[in-house]
């Protein structure tokens, strides 16, 4: 080494700044820190990577490489010998190719399937509009009423050249959406009333609400659905009869309302006392205070848990299978009753599961985003 280099400035102004070593930043450093930080972590990573790779290869083999997408159909019905010859080595997606219309629309007349399809899109549109914060205003209730009316009109038909379709023939995805959407639309106002009642100073009303909520929350939904299907007809005067779907809908509304009421009550309790006192000091009446001061703030506080309850309710509508109502899951289960398709349950449940997952995952992501958005003012 010469003296010249020793005395030269170590970094001159025009020397490009060097990057940090790759062991500190970049993918290698990331892998070191988060995958191979210790011998235990390395062992876990390698073991998991091996298992994951094996599982993915097995799954791809089953679902895509060895899968059969369609089978010949003749006068005797579907010829599923090719699928059976696989003996579980590959998926028989032919059951979906053949039965997807049945799973999605149930026994609705084949030529009229566009009507439930339009309804499904109307429902999805309604959810998207309701999810956007710029539409959170009073007019939203009108949009809901309008769209639900339109859906009822499309499903029943009987006018404008659409033949009448009785309720017994409805089925599939649209029933799941009807049960959950109408369930929430009616359960929500009821839940708000019950939550207010539970915090009321009037002892009789408070007791009624407490008994209702605790009773419903203490029993499984199945017992309420059984009640709706076998006990409810005994409650009504002779000759009066209510459709099975409507009875299940009532049971779901009563069930959902009890759970939603507890969520709303959480919001009412979380609101500071000052808000109640300030509203009283302004001389507002009880309903003015509740509608203009308390509820807007309390409901805002509990939107994320409300969406979580909605997800739960959406999943719980599948329980109507047990009392024989034709929702998405029941349609899927019925599709494989036919002898030709028996034994291909896994494929059908995967298909039905993907549909449920899309709806629930969207809601869950939305709820997480909302939680961040609504807590923005608290983040420092």
């Amino acid at each position, binding site marked *: 080494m010469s003296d010249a280099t020793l005395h030269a400035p170590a970094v001159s102004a025009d020397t490009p700044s060097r990057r940090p070593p790759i062991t500190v930043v970049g993918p290698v450093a990331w892998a070191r820190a988060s995958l191979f930080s210790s011998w235990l972590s390395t062992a876990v990573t390698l073991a998991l990577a091996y298992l994951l790779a094996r599982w993915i290869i097995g799954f791809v083999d089953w679902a895509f490489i060895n899968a059969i997408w369609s089978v010949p159909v003749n006068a005797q019905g579907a010829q599923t010998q090719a699928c059976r010859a696989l003996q579980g080595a590959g998926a028989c997606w032919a059951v979906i190719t053949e039965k997807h219309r049945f799973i999605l629309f149930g026994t609705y007349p084949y030529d009229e399937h566009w009507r439930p399809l339009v309804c499904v899109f109307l429902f999805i549109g309604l959810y998207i509009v309701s999810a956007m914060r710029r539409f959170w205003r009073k007019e939203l209730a009108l949009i809901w009423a309008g769209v639900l009316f339109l859906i009822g009109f499309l499903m029943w038909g009987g006018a404008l050249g659409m033949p009448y379709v009785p309720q017994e023939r409805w089925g599939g995805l649209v029933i799941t959406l009807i049960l959950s959407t109408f369930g929430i639309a009616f359960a929500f106002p009821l839940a708000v009333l019950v939550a207010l009642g539970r915090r009321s100073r009037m*002892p009789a*009303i408070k007791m009624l609400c407490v008994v209702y909520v605790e009773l419903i929350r*203490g*029993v499984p939904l199945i017992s309420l659905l059984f009640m709706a299907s076998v006990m409810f007809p*005994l*409650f009504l005067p*002779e000759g009066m009869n209510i459709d099975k779907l409507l009875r299940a809908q009532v049971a779901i509304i009563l069930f959902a309302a009890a759970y939603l009421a507890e969520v709303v009550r959480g919001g009412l309790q979380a609101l500071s006392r000052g808000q109640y006192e300030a509203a009283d000091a302004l001389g507002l009446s009880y309903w003015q205070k509740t509608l203009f001061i308390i509820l807007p703030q309390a409901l805002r506080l509990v939107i994320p848990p409300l969406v979580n309850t909605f*997800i739960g309710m959406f999943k719980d509508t*599948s329980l109507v299978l047990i009392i024989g109502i034709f929702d998405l899951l029941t349609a899927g289960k019925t599709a494989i009753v036919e002898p030709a398709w028996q034994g291909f349950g896994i494929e059908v449940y995967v298909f*039905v599961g993907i549909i449920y997952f899309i709806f629930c995952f969207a809601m869950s992501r939305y709820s997480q985003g909302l939680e961040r958005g609504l807590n923005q003012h608290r983040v420092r």
Partner: protein
Amino acid sequence: MSDTAADPRLLRAPPKRGLRLSWADERFRAIIWQVLIVGVVAGVIWWLVGNTRHNLEVRRIATGFGFLTREAGLPIAESLVPYTPASTYARALLVGVLNTLKVAVIGVVLATVLGTLIGIARLSKNWLLSRIAATYIEVIRDLPLLLQLLFWYTLMQTLPGPRQAMHPVEGVFLSNRGLRLPWIQWEDAHSFALLGMVVGIIAAVVYGRSARAKQMQDGQPRKIWPAAVGLIVGLPLVIWAAWGAPFQGDIPALRGFNFQGGMSISPEYFALLAGLVTYTAGFIAEIVRAGIQAVPGGQWEASEALGLQRGKIMRLVVLPQALRVIIPPMTSQYLNLTKNSSLAVAIGYQDIVSIANTTLNQTGQAIEGIAIIMGVYLTISLSISLFMNWYNSRIALVER
């Protein structure tokens, strides 16, 4: 609370006013509203009861619980107590309740273990482990439980028959007839040894308390574990040896078309338990994660500064604080698991819902059947919430 009580201005009672019979008086309005609403509710109930009594009379449906002592005549595949189709309905319902409890108790234990493991895995510094746990939680929580149960049940049915059963370890067989595990020939000595273990656990707890009380007095830490191991493990072993140490393995083996011997777990029970445990574990994992994250990092650092070991920090500092956050939502998960076990009816496991449903179909007494289902679940739910509330108040923060 004590501050307000001490404030003399607040001790003064509000001026007493007589009740005015006018709409302007708040108390009068409250009375009118309550009378009105209770009246409407009572009226509706009266109307429904009237209709029901009329309908029952017209349809000639018997009422009352007299059917409980009649012969049930319904076959039940698995039962914890002796049962034949000649037994009474009351006995059949008891079998149903026990089957529900069998799923609920074992399900709660397994779901807690699995959920805690996944919740900790979710917080792991290992990216792969944490992502896999997160994916599991997201997927399992976004699918209906009933779908998952049907999936598990279908999976059980597509397993090979007994002759080609999956046979991972000696004595374990997994086939479409369920799971067979090796077990031991149960004898009196085992029962006594089990009893000895219960006594040993109680004695160890008592000993631990007295040791801690002494430590509080003289400050000398005492080792508890040698005595505890001696009492919990040693005592049953001594009793077992005193009875001649019988040990006869009961290994399942294929005889003809089915297995003989060993412990048998039916495909229905296996599917139900697997579905309930994996589903509830997804929710418990999120609760455990939130609970651990709720303990500020400063607590770890402060404990380390005090010179505590990692295990002691977890046990003495972090866990007691995390449990306070974890217990209330965990209670509702336990209640959910118990109530969700009613979905057994969809895959043919004979729990209380399934048996009460068959009973009401056979006798036609719908009201009594559903009342029994609701009564059983209300009792179980109330017992769990009472126990968990007691436990919660025990570990709750004691505020001055």
